[in-house]
């Protein structure tokens, strides 16, 4: 997948609003593979909504979204599963980790279906992110900042053309944000992928090609 096109996409709940002045809603816009985008917005303007449209979680919008030239509203459940395994990776704002599994198991449950990274590569990422001591700890027993890092490792355990980062460093200090940035940059570069990051202020320090407002 090389390009994501949004043609006059407006969330249905915003359809009566006349004051949509941002760069995306109601406009024609494209995300290209290999580029980095930062979407800046105050809360309630639809950052996560945009992510959920691009990830097939929700379809309550007007307009069309195209992956390459395919209208995503026509994709089947299995096609979405394929896209989620191969083309788009998503670091969810609410992480969507499994509380009863350990940190490592949460990563493995993804890697088991993609076979994208070796065990040692995964352990190296834990090490790099400073949470190697939490590998066998249940995910609901560690802090949200640590969980964010586990969720990142899981998000990287697959091939992708685009990486969606929904407020990825909301609970991280600057040092850890920097480590995360390095890892993401390295992984995305190796995959030639585009990055779409959202932020409500504190944003991850990529060398962005484009900063957008919602």
């Amino acid at each position, binding site marked *: 997948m090389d390009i994501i096109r949004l043609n006059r996409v407006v969330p249905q709940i915003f359809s009566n609003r006349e004051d949509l002045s941002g760069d995306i809603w109601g406009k024609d816009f494209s995300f290209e593979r290999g580029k980095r985008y930062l979407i800046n917005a105050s809360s309630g303007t639809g950052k996560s909504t945009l992510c959920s449209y691009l*990830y*097939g*979680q*929700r*379809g*309550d919008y007007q307009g069309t979204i195209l992956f390459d030239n395919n209208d995503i509203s026509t994709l089947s*459940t*299995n096609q*979405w*599963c*394929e896209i*989620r*395994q191969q083309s788009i990776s*998503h670091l*969810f704002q609410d992480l*969507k980790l*499994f509380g*009863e*599994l350990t940190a490592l*198991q949460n990563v*493995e*449950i*993804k890697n*088991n*279906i*993609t076979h994208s990274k070796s065990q040692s590569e995964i352990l190296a990422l834990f090490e790099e992110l400073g949470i190697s001591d939490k590998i066998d700890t249940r995910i609901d027993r560690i802090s949200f900042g640590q969980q964010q890092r586990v969720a990142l490792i*899981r998000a990287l355990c*697959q091939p992708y053309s685009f990486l969606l980062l929904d407020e990825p460093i909301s609970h991280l200090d600057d040092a850890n944000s920097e480590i995360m940035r390095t890892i993401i940059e390295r992984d995305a570069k190796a995959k030639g992928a585009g990055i779409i990051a959202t932020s409500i202020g504190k944003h991850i320090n990529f060398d962005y090609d484009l900063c957008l407002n919602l």
Partner: protein
Amino acid sequence: MSKSITLIWQLLRKHISIFELAIFFIANLIGMVVILAGVQIYSDLKPLLSGEEAIIGNDYIVVTHPVKRVGINATSFSNDDIEELQNQEFVKSVGRFTSSQFEVDGSIVFGGRRLSTMLFFESIPDEFIDAIPDTWGFTEGDTTIPIILPRNYLNLYNFGFSSTQKLPQITETMVKSVNLGIELSGNGHTNEFTGRVAGFSDRINTILVPEAFMSWANGYYANVATDFPTRLILEVANPSDPNLMEFLEANDYVLESKPAESGKALFILKVCVAIIVVIGVIFSLLSIIILTLSIHLLLQKNITKLETLTLIGYTPSRVAMPYNALTLALNGAILILSLAVIFVAQNIYSDYLSQLDGITISSSPIASIVVGVALTALITAFNIFVINRKIKEISRKR
């Protein structure tokens, strides 16, 4: 693959209710055992009630045309009548009564006096005779004619006639040892034969001689090869079949003898088995409903996890896998357990029957295995269908 199943299983087993599964397990086990017991009992007992070694054979009925007035009635059956009967679904085979077309004079020397009477003979094909005596048969040149008498003739004498006339009662063996003088005449021939009562019949209400004798004698003394029969014997599967009764009525045929009560055993067995199987099916249906509800509830409790799994790229069929495996394991265990119960039960009742009456059941458990496997496959397929549909519904939710 197996590693991912282990992890999903660890995730999804959480809300599994042992209580609900136990209820399903017990209900379905009962249903399965009841159904299989019905099938097995039916397949074990059916050969005893029908077929070659039947203890209670098929039913035989004798039909005639009604005699409506004094004189000669048109009471014979044409070839068309016979063919029509033979083509009926409820008629297994048709036998013709052939009557003697010559004069028969029977005599017996009893207490120094010679009693003689005019007689007639009839014959039917051997396969319709209930008990064929060892001495049955005739070849041209024989001077002895074996005869089968209806057992109720003897009863009539012993319990009706002799007691009131102060005559001695006689046994079957005595009757069999008596020589009857038989004089046959017709077509310019007259010959003496010896008649011997070879056996008694509960089924055939006439003086029977072997068919071979009859066809020879009718040719020799009457110079007729065949005559249209006035009585027919029918072998039927179920004498109480309403279709049979309707047919007889429509054609104005008269049933000569009411079918024997014992012949209804097979019919009763079929009804009992049907009732048992219906009860079993109801149990199984209820258990399937319980399992379906239980699975729905389980999926509903795990809905967030299921959604998340599909969000990280798990296909609905992969998510369904542990649940499918669970139902397969449950249903497989039920099948094995219920078959074990049936085998034990079969051993017990076949032992009991063989002690009771020397009846040996040669039936194999194939019938219940086939039905059990088929039912399990059906139930499992339905469960898996329900699971997959529900998971697809969850993963489609947007």
